[in-house]
């Protein structure tokens, strides 16, 4: 179970996907990622010193897609990697210890770079907080930005995203499912009722 998703109240297809309705179609997801890539290029003035670090597991895939689009649009190969934040979570004591996901930092490191953290859903902000701590132990970036496919609101920390694919106002009783071809066989963003016994709003 990808922790970042769990934290965001997102359950990939589990929950009750039949009851969920599509907020973004596959084509929408593609368009949104294209737009985000353009925004990164624009806001970072050509992405010269950008490193894209995805938060596993879907964040990592999104980071790779963004890099692919940036290269397609501007001919620049942006280093990408993944950053597992499990060991930095503030809710470790609430559950059994979890298996770790890969942390894979590009060989040139992150010192002096502009790191863009990439995640699928921004919810309470706690995942991003943990990611910032993890990042600090890996090096000293010039600046850190945040890109998310969906911002569903309900922040519990003073954190905001620099690049947002789509703002989806949600109720705490709802769950956001992000599906990506790499993991789920298709691209979509679904909005559905919280899984039984689980309050979609309880940012874990």
């Amino acid at each position, binding site marked *: 179970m990808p922790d970042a998703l769990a934290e965001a109240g997102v359950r990939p297809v589990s929950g009750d996907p039949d009851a969920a309705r599509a907020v973004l179609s596959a084509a929408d997801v593609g368009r949104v990622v294209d737009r985000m890539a353009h925004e990164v290029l624009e806001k970072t003035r050509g992405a010269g010193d950008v490193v894209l670090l995805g938060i596993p597991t879907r964040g990592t895939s999104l980071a790779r897609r963004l890099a692919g689009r940036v290269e397609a649009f501007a001919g620049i190969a942006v280093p990408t990697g993944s950053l597992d934040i499990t060991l930095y979570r503030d809710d470790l004591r609430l559950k059994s*210890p979890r298996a770790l996901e890969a*942390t894979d930092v590009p060989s040139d490191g992150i010192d002096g770079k502009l790191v863009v953290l990439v995640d699928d859903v921004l919810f309470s902000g706690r995942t991003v907080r943990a990611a910032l701590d993890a990042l600090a132990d890996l090096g000293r970036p010039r600046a850190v930005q945040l890109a998310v496919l969906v911002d569903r609101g309900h922040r519990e920390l003073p954190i905001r995203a620099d690049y947002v694919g789509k703002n989806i106002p949600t109720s705490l009783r709802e769950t956001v499912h992000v599906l990506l071809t790499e993991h789920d066989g298709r691209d979509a963003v679904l909005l559905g009722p919280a899984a039984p016994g689980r309050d979609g709003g309880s940012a874990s």
Partner: protein
Amino acid sequence: MRRHLLSAADLSLEDATLVLDTAEELAQVSERTVKKLPTLRGRTVVNLFFEDSTRTRTSFELAAKRLSADVINFSAKGSSVSKGETLKDTALTLEAMGSDAVVIRHSWSGAPANLARWIRGSVVNAGDGTHEHPTQALLDAFTMRKRLGRIEGLAVTIVGDVLHSRVARSNVLLLSTLGADVTLVAPPTLLPVGVETWPASVSYDLDAVLPKSDVVMMLRVQRERMGPSGEKATAYFPSSREYSRRYGLDVRRALALADDAIVMHPGPMVRGMEIAPEVADGVRSTIVEQVANGVSVRMAVLYLLLGGAAPAIGAPDVGFDLAPPAPLTPPAQGRATPA
């Protein structure tokens, strides 16, 4: 609820794989500038060492510190333990200090199991008598997987004083869980009665086994085994010369190994006895890696035991028991049914 790591047998295939995978990720920490994670902040880990072992104690200490746990080193020497304080008294003291885990090294087999009944936290066996040393087996497995890419199907040969080796016991158990084929090689006097029931093959002939081995693990042979205080009649073998001639990994024997075979040793080595210096320092040798891997594996164990609300690996709770012994299940009538 699971709570302890007392024996390699406490780990299922899933558990063991989880430890190795976790260690793999944690190994990166050792390569960073900031070699520290906040994961166990506020947790207290006690290193309770009744036997000298700078190597193992330091490894556990570093592992706990890299995860930001508070570490107390409680060594038997210079403490009240050497003044006749019982293990139980020590346990009660540690309990009062609020330790979350006790890493114990003890000269009596089973001492960690005894301790587990007297404290509420997790107990990690860091070597008990001639019983087990599960984290050593985990780091050995980790080293094999790193070097050879897999464990399942590997031919692992463990050579030496199996009878008295906690490393051998834990390795046999863990490696069989992970699907390796283990062969024990030793003079018959250094193999325990009952070894035929272990999940391992047995041979007395090192030369016959070496060419088929992917991994050769040499165990330390203590000179005391030639008879305590010069008591020759209780010796397990006639002389160190004869031992190293028949069971030592010398340069000639190392040539018989397959190209990518590796040579391991849990340390400390007796160079020239069970292993020739040229072999110990050669390219096949993983002896230095084993030490580094030890820290990662112990970090993984501590994280998986202490990092969450409840341990993710380990032995079932044996029950917390300060007064009377735990009752046994009544036997079926007329039949001896040991609990």
